[in-house]
């Protein structure tokens, strides 16, 4: 087989390979020598060092949690800050029989069995090995002293100082800013374990939740040498944490207080926003609660009271409360009718006190049973005439209504940075088919025209739709953060502005809204008469769905809770709108009688100075002078 010349090659090749193998063997030996030298270095030369580290003393990397960013109102008043607080921590690995140690802690501090149980639950949530787990917050001086005295029989127990969230304004911003609470098991799974290694709290709702990433900051750490008992002997190295960014809100503490005062203890919701910028200046959901309760762990009893209260203080009415918008939607419906061409500013409808679909006996009643006679657009809005809007809705049809109302933000989330906002509901044929497997009936179109039926909106959506009237269709999402650190909020998916065939359509509808307060037959004339400036507004009532919890309670209260909710939306001043507001008073019955005065109180608080005069910055000089003279 092998030919002579190849055989010669073969031998040459073998020699070549043998030489290379020799080189390889030498390299292998040299590199093995390197490994042995490295091991010798670690295990013999540095033995003392490593041995000390591992035998009695251990190196620990202790995370240093970043301090959470502060939250201010638009004028720099503090809404959320961090307060030093002393907490009791357990390091399970150092406690030995930690359950016995917990028993001793309970004995020393004279605590209840319930708290003992809570401690155990908290210890079992511990994470990295050798990480101290806080079991009790806000120790008093006496408790700290008792622990110190008994320290010798409490291995693994330490009193640690840490910063804990505090809300100096109490219940005012519980629904907008929200609160932080202890990280729970579920949240633990989705968190960055490194960045949260020293953090025990996380934003649960509101701004605290929405801007958690920004507020939290970046963890720092400290490499420390400790003895076997866990006492820190020295700090080997330290990297400072990067604190979370401060957030300045658009909310105004003074206006918030004024709005809450205007509700005068009634249950309800108020949103006030600046149409030009989308800044939410007041956001009230009453009753409210003290967010400080949640920070260090609310007791079962307190939580039960809040959760089961018939007044539902935990319920965010502004973002989660869904109400049929009722007549408040009529100005926007009028825009839809004008732009679609089914009505004109001068077209008239005769109102005998009811409306009938062709060839159908059912009568859709106007609220004013006697009827308003011949009605045009301005009168229809001023008098809140249902018949006019029944007729218009029938001509417009559900598809076009859905289209126009969606452009006003109904049936979708409108806010830029609010946690757990509900989309509400703007019904359509498709929606009904999917939801009920039924076709759309003409009668449903008719009642949609006065904001009843399936339609549901949040107070925030009503405020935004009103703001869109004020800006004549210019969309800016309502938001709560004015500045995040030094940055401005950015809208990732802006809404398209509402463009009409003729911009004058806005004026026709707004004039109707103005007449509601200032017209001779306006539904809210009583409120308009007392105003120092011109207001455009619209009242509404939302029929109540029975509250389940309420049914257990006494019949007198039950009846009250079945009354309609009162709604009022407004913006002012009419000619240069500065502020838009939506008010919902639970079981208030009358939009113009109960909700309108509240709305006006909010507008006054923003627009008027101490003397009851329109603030100079809100009044276009020439016009204001003209009106006064």
């Amino acid at each position: 087989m092998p030919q002579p010349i190849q055989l010669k090659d073969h031998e040459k090749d073998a020699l070549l390979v043998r030489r290379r193998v020799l080189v390889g063997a030498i390299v292998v030996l040299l590199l093995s020598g390197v490994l042995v030298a490295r091991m010798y270095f670690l295990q013999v030369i540095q033995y003392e060092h490593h041995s000390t580290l591992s035998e009695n003393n251990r190196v620990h990397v202790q995370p240093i949690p970043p301090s959470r960013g502060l939250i201010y109102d638009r004028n720099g008043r503090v809404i959320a800050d961090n307060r030093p607080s002393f907490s009791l921590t357990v390091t399970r690995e150092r406690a030995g029989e930690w359950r016995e140690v917990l028993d001793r802690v309970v004995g020393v501090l004279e605590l209840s069995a319930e708290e003992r149980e809570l401690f155990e639950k908290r210890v079992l949530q511990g994470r990295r090995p050798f990480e101290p787990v806080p079991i009790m917050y806000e120790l008093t001086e006496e408790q700290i002293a008792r622990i110190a005295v008994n320290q010798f029989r409490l291995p693994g127990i330490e009193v640690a100082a840490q910063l804990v969230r505090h809300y100096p304004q109490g219940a005012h911003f519980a629904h907008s800013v929200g609160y932080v609470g202890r990280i729970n098991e579920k949240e633990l799974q989705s968190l960055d374990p490194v960045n949260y290694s020293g953090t025990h709290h996380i934003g649960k709702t509101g701004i605290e939740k929405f801007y958690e990433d920004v507020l939290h900051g970046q963890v720092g750490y400290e490499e420390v040498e400790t003895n076997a008992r866990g006492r820190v002997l020295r700090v080997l190295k330290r990297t400072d944490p990067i604190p979370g960014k401060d957030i300045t809100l658009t909310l105004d503490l003074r206006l918030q207080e004024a709005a809450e005062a205007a509700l005068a203890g009634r249950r309800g919701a108020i949103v006030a926003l600046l149409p030009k910028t989308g800044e939410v200046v007041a956001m009230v959901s009453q009753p409210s609660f003290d967010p400080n309760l949640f920070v260090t762990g609310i007791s079962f009893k307190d939580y039960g009271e809040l959760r089961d209260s018939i007044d539902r203080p935990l319920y965010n009415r502004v973002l989660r409360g869904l109400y049929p918008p009722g007549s408040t939607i009529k100005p926007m419906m009028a825009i839809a009718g004008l732009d679609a061409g089914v009505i004109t500013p001068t077209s008239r409808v005769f109102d005998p006190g009811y409306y009938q679909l062709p060839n159908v006996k059912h009568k859709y009643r106007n609220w004013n049973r006697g009827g308003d006679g011949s009605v045009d657009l301005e009168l229809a809005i001023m008098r809140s005439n249902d018949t006019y809007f029944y007729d218009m809705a029938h001509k417009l049809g559900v598809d076009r209504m859905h289209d126009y109302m969606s452009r006003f933000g109904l049936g979708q989330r409108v806010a830029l940075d609010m946690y757990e906002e509900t989309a509400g509901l703007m019904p359509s044929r498709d929606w009904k088919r999917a939801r009920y497997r039924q076709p759309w009936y003409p009668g449903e179109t008719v009642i949609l025209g006065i904001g009843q039926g399936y339609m549901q909106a949040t107070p925030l959506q009503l405020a935004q739709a009103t703001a869109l009237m004020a800006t004549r269709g210019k969309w800016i999402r309502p938001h709560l953060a004015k500045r995040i650190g030094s940055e401005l909020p950015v809208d990732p998916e802006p809404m398209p502005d509402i463009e009409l065939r003729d911009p004058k359509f806005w004026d026709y509808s707004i004039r109707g809204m103005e007449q509601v307060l200032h017209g001779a037959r306006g539904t809210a004339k009583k409120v308009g008469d007392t105003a120092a400036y011109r207001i455009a507004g619209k009242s509404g009532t939302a029929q109540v769905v029975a509250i389940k919890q309420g049914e257990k309670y006494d019949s007198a209260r039950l009846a009250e809770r079945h009354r309609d909710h009162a709604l009022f939306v407004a913006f002012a001043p009419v000619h240069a709108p500065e502020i838009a507001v939506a008010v919902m008073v639970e079981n208030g019955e009358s939009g113009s009688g109960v909700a309108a005065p509240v709305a006006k109180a909010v507008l006054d608080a923003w627009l008027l100075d101490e003397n009851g005069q329109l603030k100079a910055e809100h009044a276009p000089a020439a016009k204001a002078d003209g009106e006064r003279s």
Partner: protein
Amino acid sequence: MNGNFDRNLSHEDVLRRRASLLQRLHVDGLLLLLLLTLAAASLFILYSASGKNLDLLVKQASSFGLGLGAMLVIAQFEPRFMARWVPLGYLVVVGLLLAVEFMGHTAMGATRWINIPGLIRFQPSEFMKIIMPMTIAWYLSSRPLPPRFKHTVISLALIVVPFVLILKQPDLGTSLLILASGAFVLFIAGLPWRWILGAVTAVVPIAVGMWYFVMHDYQKQRVLTFLDPESDPLGTGWNIIQSKAAIGSGGVFGKGWLLGTQSHLDFLPESHTDFIIAVLAEEFGLVGVCLLLLLYLLLIARGLTITVQAQTLFGKLLAGALTMTFFVYVFVNIGMVSGLLPVVGVPLPFISYGGTSLVTLLSGFGVLMSIHTHRKWIAQV
């Protein structure tokens, strides 16, 4: 194997041949002895490293059994047979790697697996660890040595394709091992020294390019952590800090079996997989590490002997490359755990827990045994 051939041998030769059961099974006794010793050592250390987890030991032992089976089967094939089929094998595995690239199974942020639900889940890159040196050895063995420029370029192309595919999965450790296994064939085939030097100088700009264009953030993070492990002590640097403390505290004779504190108190992560040498070093000290290294060096010495004694050029190139690559495993793993090299995720051969790596490694030794035991007797006489 036929009767006529027997008659040409001396009586003694025939006796010697018939006497050895191992040789008839195409098993190299010395290699087998060393491998079994390592297997025993692995179970011994794993028992401690896993916190006396017997289930884990049973799994590791059965992986050993499976690997030894694979080794035995592979040893039966003649090297000539392997050389004939390796081009096809290469194409198939590259095809599989492409399949991984486009429709592979993703786990823990990397796409390395081909998953046929209910049937099998495997990493094609593991096959490449053996196919790669075999392919280059097949290609170069029928060309004149030392390799000409053209043949070197073609060899490099054959190496680079799977290297890049695996690097993109991303699996830096495996891709480097495969690169090394192909490069060793070229080295043993007598690649001129000046070319090697040229390639080494070219590495610097390539490395800079890779840093900016190829490497993932987590890989960059690993390199940075290597350069300054303490820069990230809560994340990747934690492993190095703790493994160094574990190794260093072992001293010369170690703390004794099951008495290591660092590994048992959960200070040391991945203590039974990639970082197992730290457990060995802590419990058996410098002496234990040196003994293990000695075992490895004996294996390598045997591999290099087989290389030199191989009769065909294909056998020589393949055996040499497999042996040298084996050493790369050892060096990279111990180097990374002791803080000399970046953490690239290479297990310690035969000791670390993990079935896949065991089967692949033992298959490699099956190839070595095949090369050694299928030699023609006539040439030795």
